[in-house]
């Protein structure tokens, strides 16, 4: 983890998104898929917290060496300011933060699922998987055509791609879950990766548990600092020995997590003030082939 004053090399509008490329060699050479950066907002404004973005691209070699790219979805005052930033301005960036995706040691057929901005992190992961001679298939979803992030990139990186939009303006009509079962069959999926809003991840997790597919998902939870101080972005995760659960911080213990261990009901319920432990206790999740510690490599 490093803190840097990084110059914006370029910004690019891509449909509903803006991508920013920064010159940040110290962060770029360490960044791995699934990790994110925390970008400080300008001083003297009323929006004060850092904004957090998954790393879309970190180049260690070639003409773009030392650059780092992330994707901004201009939905609020902070992200709106960032989307309008110009080249040669500098940003205060901390990164790379969080636990990255791990790669399977033996299994080869990987299905990658992304919804909306989640595609940014998934394409970075796909490149790394391809470099490790894995087969990559993708399911990409978004509300509309404008919000499908770089569909051509998805095609370039994978054997097969299913694009799903809620309004049917690009690819099939529906959500990623409508296309996922078929994609799993087609790819003879052995491993699943996903980056999507938490409600989608929950459904994906149910599918993975039912089919006993080892999976890793990048969770989204509202963050305060991004480096573990404030305990805002917690996700309830079952302990391995079944003795209960821990509220783990998505910023330092995640954002990549084992979806089978996440207590989705507890996390996503319209919560009462203080949550009791579920009446049946916390479920014990036993590892199945491919999910144990030894099956993954950092």
């Amino acid at each position, binding site marked *: 983890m490093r803190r840097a004053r990084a110059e914006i090399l370029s910004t690019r509008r891509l449909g509903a998104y803006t991508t920013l490329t920064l010159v940040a060699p110290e962060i770029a050479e360490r960044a791995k898929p699934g990790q994110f950066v925390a970008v400080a*907002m300008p001083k003297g404004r*009323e929006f004060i917290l850092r904004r957090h973005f998954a790393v879309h691209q970190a180049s260690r070699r070639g003409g773009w060496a030392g650059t780092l790219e992330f994707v901004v979805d201009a939905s609020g005052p902070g992200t709106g300011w960032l989307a309008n930033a110009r080249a040669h301005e500098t940003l205060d960036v901390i990164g790379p933060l969080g636990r990255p995706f791990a790669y399977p040691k033996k299994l080869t057929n990987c299905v990658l699922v992304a919804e909306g901005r989640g595609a940014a992190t998934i394409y970075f992961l796909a490149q790394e998987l391809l470099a490790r001679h894995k087969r990559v298939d993708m399911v990409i979803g978004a509300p509309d055509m404008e919000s499908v992030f770089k569909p051509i990139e998805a095609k370039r990186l994978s054997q097969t791609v299913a694009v799903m939009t809620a309004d049917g303006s690009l690819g099939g009509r529906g959500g990623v879950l409508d296309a996922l079962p078929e994609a799993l069959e087609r790819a003879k999926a052995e491993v699943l990766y996903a980056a999507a809003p938490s409600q989608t991840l929950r459904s994906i997790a149910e599918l993975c548990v039912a089919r006993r597919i080892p999976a890793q998902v990048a969770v989204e*939870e509202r963050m305060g600092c991004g480096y573990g101080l404030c305990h805002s972005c917690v*996700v309830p995760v079952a302990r391995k020995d079944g003795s209960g659960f821990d509220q783990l911080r998505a910023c330092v213990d995640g954002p990549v997590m084992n979806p089978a261990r996440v207590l989705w009901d507890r996390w996503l*319920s319209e919560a009462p003030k203080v949550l009791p432990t579920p009446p049946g206790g916390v479920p014990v999740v036993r590892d199945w082939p491919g999910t144990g510690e030894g099956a993954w490599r950092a």
Partner: protein
Amino acid sequence: MAGVKRSLAVDVGGLRMVTPVLIASGCAGTGKELAGLVDQHRIGAIVSRTITVASRKGAPTPRIAETASGLVWETGLQNPGMDAFVAEELPRLARTQTPVVVSIGGGSLEEYVRLTSALQGRPEVAAIEINLSLPDDEMDRPILGTHADRVSEIAGAVARSSLVPVFAKIPGGCDDVAGLAAAAVRSGATGVTLCGSPPALAVDAVRLRAELGAVAGWLSGPALKPLTLRAVFEVARALPGTPILASGGVRTGVDAVECLLAGAWAVQVGTATLIDPAAPVEVAQQIARYLKSKNVASPSDVRSRLRVPAATAPTQEARR
């Protein structure tokens, strides 16, 4: 004034620090997070997250919402409980080479006493801060520390059984801060922290819901600075000589100096640390620059030096 030896070191009622800047409760992590982002030995002290007798899982998410120049939060005091804290987190915090002030919280007098005795004899504990913003289980009140009787009862009990300095953190948004501070100090507390976060709410008008999972929360951030200054000013006037830690809205060296002028002995930096992990050190450097420009030797030389015309209408406390 050549040859003056300038130092940022302060002694706040027995809590000795290399700078008058602490990291406020809940913003200092659990020991490892700040490594590499800031020179931790240059932070005056860190205040731990609030520790309770039993472990707490904390509030549901979202736990944080940004508001104009501030943030509304409710973590529900997630913490491992006093035994696990003393066994694991406290040694880890102490290894950062920064003095550790432990924040304690409970719903009854008994819990505060048990927490104090659990910390007794631990060399890592430089001081205790009493979080009084919890609900009062015994008296069935929403916030324990808004009543002088409870403040003096709890601060007195903690102070009696503690060998280290004890600071009572007066809840934010109270109308009689000086009265509550006086209750704490007269019953034995070394000093006070002014103030805790005031209660707050953030609303999402699109979803017709509260922004936070716990619904109601607490306000932090730069928006609080004027509230902090007023509280510090009133307590410093009503109780001269009482060690005061200013907490709330301090983001820059200028903010910190303003607090010192109003009567604070040291300042706590909270939200600013979540935005800029080096803030506690930068604030201290800026204080040093200010001291140099004013040609004074120590932060205590500017304390309570706010020039107030004698004819000013007395504050609420002076009238008492």
